[in-house]
């Protein structure tokens, strides 16, 4: 009995011990789960309360100005429109982003233009073309002519983080009901009724999968998908599935349904665009249909909803038919859930999916972008650029950039064909195009192929400028000499620090004396050295500093012939000063930076400093025009360039570098051709670089006004005697010529050769002249 009692007591004890243990275990696991969920909630909160997504900053080109009378080909405008994401419409353009081109007319419904300094709402306009120029621009609604039209900037690049995602944020209020319904129908029909986990959904999925012996349907709710995408690695593990479950339940506790849906809509992966992921419905609606999410139609919304399952399989860019089928499945699911009438569905299923014609985005102007990045680093950290969704407006002109890239490649290939020995040399080149007045960098090509070499020759290379440096030597000489002064071309040996130096001319030039103008026009080394030695190297160094050169700080006699290293961008910038009345502009690549709401954060205005007087700049320009008309760049006219251009060729020892810098009052371009290892390219600046310049400028008729430079008041024209370089005595000097002089530095004396104080000689001269006539 006692034993029995004890046994019973033991049994009870055991039971209560089990119960207690079970209770303890329950409490323990509850606490563990709570702690775990609390931990998860902290993680979720941290991620959600801070910046939810990193949005890459976008880099834009400059806006484009169009005006009646501008040289612009109709086809060039169409290319531009397509790059801006405009699509052709069959009839009259009914909504923003559509255009129609018929005969000599383009009618286009413009996008809104919104940059920090330019705002214009999207309006339909008509452009009429005649003789490869814009004849008129009309506002279609009012019929009024528009004197000026600004096209929106082109998106050139995104600053990505390591995840390389593109995204445009939308709020749930922006997304139309039918789009939300389509997404719910496709992914989670009971989203608004479950608590993060949909048991019915899972059971249904299991049933369908078992029935068809395949993994056809997943039971994941939108919340689970979000948890999976957001916090978890994609490995298929049971523990991950458990975590996903806990996380979605926690999320449902923490947030309203609308909030979760909004995050989801901005998070979902919806495709791929040249190496970067399209994330979120905001970006996707632009990528697939070129419109904001608010304007998506039911069919378009259903097509995007259909993409979620396998964006790259169902993408309309990859397979339109498969995309249509998947869209129709979504429409069917919408009918099942009573979000759509059957009659409506019937109407929609036959319509094809028509994605927007998308310009191929990629690394356009890669060298410019690298240069811009280094400029931006002073203002923003890489993390900020990758995540804050800034808009960066640049000075880049995509048409000029394209022309520069094409001209360089064409020119280098042509050169290689003309001389097969060059195929062994790794021929390289660089092009910089600037607006001389503003210092805007319109285009920058730092090499032949960015994918092979990211070394930016336009800004990182140090190369000898050769004769391309002569204009700065001559500028330094203008206080002493005039364009009419005679310089010696007689060979000399100079002793520099005891060592002999005998400069030579590039090509033989059989005159003892040449005018300064001739010396520059024909790039005569001996005459340049004669001038340089007379004015002194210090004076040339000072001038070089005024023109912004920083790559050297001592000038040796060989420097007069460009025997020191310069950075191509600095050389281009220095030439800008000649083209802009002697004002040296700061080279600009960035114009404005705006935050994600379009608020201006930073701006760069044109900044100029005085490098040389406007009078001297004009005289140098006039001499540089002689280079093109009668000198080393004479061949330019064979490329059809007959309007006033100032330019200078440059060739270094053994043809290691070939240069051409040419400019008009509107545009300046520098071309360099050479090899990174300093091997010869067997060609001069006139042969290797000049044709590239000519191709480039010929491709940009809209940028060249064909005007000449304005003569500043301090420049005068005088007639001088060719024999003496002194002022000509009217009727006395036999050979005279007009020349530009600085007003305060004209030849002071009348020709002593042909006019003398000796009356006898005067009489004799008169008789001589009589006979000559």
């Amino acid at each position, binding site marked *: 009995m006692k034993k029995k009692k004890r046994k019973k007591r033991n049994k009870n004890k055991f039971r209560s011990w089990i119960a207690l243990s079970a209770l303890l275990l329950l409490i323990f696991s509850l606490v563990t789960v709570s702690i775990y969920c609390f931990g998860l909630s902290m993680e979720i909160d941290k991620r959600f309360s801070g910046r939810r997504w990193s949005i890459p900053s976008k880099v834009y080109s400059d806006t484009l100005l169009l005006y009646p009378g501008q040289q612009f080909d109709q086809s060039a405008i169409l290319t531009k429109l397509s790059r801006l994401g405009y699509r052709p419409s069959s009839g009259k353009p009914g909504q923003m982003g559509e255009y129609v081109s018929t005969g000599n007319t383009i009618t286009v419904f413009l996008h809104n233009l919104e940059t920090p300094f330019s705002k214009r709402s999207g309006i339909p306009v008509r452009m009429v073309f005649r003789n490869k120029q814009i004849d008129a621009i009309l506002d279609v609604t009012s019929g009024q002519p528009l004197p000026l039209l600004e096209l929106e900037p082109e998106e050139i690049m995104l600053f990505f983080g390591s995840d390389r995602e593109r995204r445009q944020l939308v709020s749930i209020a922006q997304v139309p009901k039918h789009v939300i319904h389509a997404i719910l129908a496709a992914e989670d029909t009971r989203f608004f009724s479950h608590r993060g986990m949909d048991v019915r959904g899972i059971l249904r999925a299991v049933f369908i999968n078992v029935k068809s012996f395949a993994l056809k349907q997943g039971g994941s709710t939108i919340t689970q998908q979000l948890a999976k995408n957001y916090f978890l690695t994609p490995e298929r593990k049971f523990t991950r599935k458990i975590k996903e479950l806990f996380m979605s339940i926690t999320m449902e506790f923490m947030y309203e349904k609308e909030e979760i849906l909004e995050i989801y809509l901005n998070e979902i992966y919806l495709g791929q665009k040249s190496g970067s992921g399209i994330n979120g419905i905001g970006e996707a609606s632009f990528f697939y249909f070129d419109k904001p999410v608010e304007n998506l139609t039911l069919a378009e919304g259903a097509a995007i909803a259909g993409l979620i399952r396998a964006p790259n399989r169902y993408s309309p860019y990859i397979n339109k038919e498969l995309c249509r089928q998947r869209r129709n499945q979504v429409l069917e699911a919408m009918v099942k859930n009573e979000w759509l009438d059957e009659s409506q569905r019937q109407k929609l299923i036959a319509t094809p999916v028509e994605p927007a014609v998308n310009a191929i985005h990629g690394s356009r102007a890669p060298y410019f972008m690298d240069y811009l990045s280094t400029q931006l680093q002073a203002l923003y950290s890489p993390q900020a650029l990758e995540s804050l969704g800034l808009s960066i407006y640049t000075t880049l002109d995509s048409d000029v950039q394209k022309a520069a890239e094409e001209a360089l490649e064409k020119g280098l290939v042509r050169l290689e064909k003309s001389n097969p020995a060059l195929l062994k040399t790794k021929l390289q080149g660089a092009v910089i195009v600037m607006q001389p007045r503003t210092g805007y960098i319109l285009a920058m090509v730092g090499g032949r192929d960015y994918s092979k070499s990211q070394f930016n020759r336009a800004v990182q290379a140090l190369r000898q400028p050769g004769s391309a440096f002569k204009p700065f030597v001559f500028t330094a000489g203008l206080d002493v000499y005039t364009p009419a002064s005679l310089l*010696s071309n007689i060979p000399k040996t100079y002793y520099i620090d005891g060592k002999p130096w005998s400069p030579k001319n590039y090509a033989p030039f059989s005159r003892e004396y040449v005018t300064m103008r001739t010396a520059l026009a024909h790039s005569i080394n001996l005459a340049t050295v004669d001038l340089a030695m007379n004015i002194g190297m210090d004076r040339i160094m000072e001038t070089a500093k005024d023109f912004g050169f920083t790559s050297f700080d001592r000038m040796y006699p060989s420097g007069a012939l460009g025997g020191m290293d310069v950075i191509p961008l600095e050389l281009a910038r220095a030439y800008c000063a000649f083209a802009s009345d002697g004002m040296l502009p700061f080279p600009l690549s960035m114009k404005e930076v705006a935050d994600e709401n379009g608020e201006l954060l930073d701006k760069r205005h044109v900044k100029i400093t005085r490098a040389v007087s406007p009078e001297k700049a004009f005289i140098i320009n006039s001499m540089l025009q002689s280079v093109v008309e009668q000198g080393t760049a004479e061949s330019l006219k064979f490329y059809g360039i007959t309007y006033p251009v100032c330019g200078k060729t440059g060739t270094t020892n053994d043809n290691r570098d070939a240069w051409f810098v040419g400019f008009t009052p509107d545009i300046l371009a520098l071309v360099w051709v050479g090899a990174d290892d300093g091997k010869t390219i067997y060609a001069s600046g006139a042969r290797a670089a000049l044709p590239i310049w000519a191709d480039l400028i010929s491709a940009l008729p809209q940028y060249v*006004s064909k005007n000449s430079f304005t003569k500043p008041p301090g420049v005068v024209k005088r007639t001088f005697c060719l024999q003496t370089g002194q002022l000509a005595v009217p009727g006395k000097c036999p050979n005279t010529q007009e020349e530009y002089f600085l007003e305060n530095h004209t030849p002071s004396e009348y020709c002593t050769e042909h006019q003398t104080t000796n009356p006898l000689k005067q009489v004799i001269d008169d008789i001589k002249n009589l006979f000559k006539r």
Partner: protein
Amino acid sequence: MISKTCSNDKSYGRIFFVCVLLVSLLSCTPKIIRPSKEPQRSPVPIQETSKPAAKDTPVYKPMDKKPMVTKPVEKDVPSAENPQSPRLLASLQLTGQARQHLEEGDADNAIRSLERAVVLDPSNGQNYYYLSEAWLQKGNIDQALKFNELAEIHLANQSRWGAMVIEQKHRILDQSER
């Protein structure tokens, strides 16, 4: 006697004629052409010799003594003299916009419009005048003066503007003193 005198007179005439001939012949001989002005040699320690002294100096062929001269070229007219230029008209549109911004006290926006106007027509001095005005409004004396200089060059031929440019310069200098 008479004849003797006559012959004496004749010989004087002959001598005179021969002298004249000699002088004129002498003056006809080609002269060495000199550079217009021989500037001061630089004081840097560079020695030079006009004779090819070094052994490796190449032998040059005799050169033409007549100097080589190049004529300056003149082409086209600056756009300021061609008021119908479409670029000029487009540029003036932007100038107009900029003036409006200036009146509203929005110097930054004015500068943006003017920078574009300058690109379309670099020879229109009004743009430089208003750029100077905008920089003055922003208190940047240095840039205001620089653009005033450019305005002076490009508005030199227009009397009304010329006076405005000078007045602007005084205003800039006044503000810089304050």
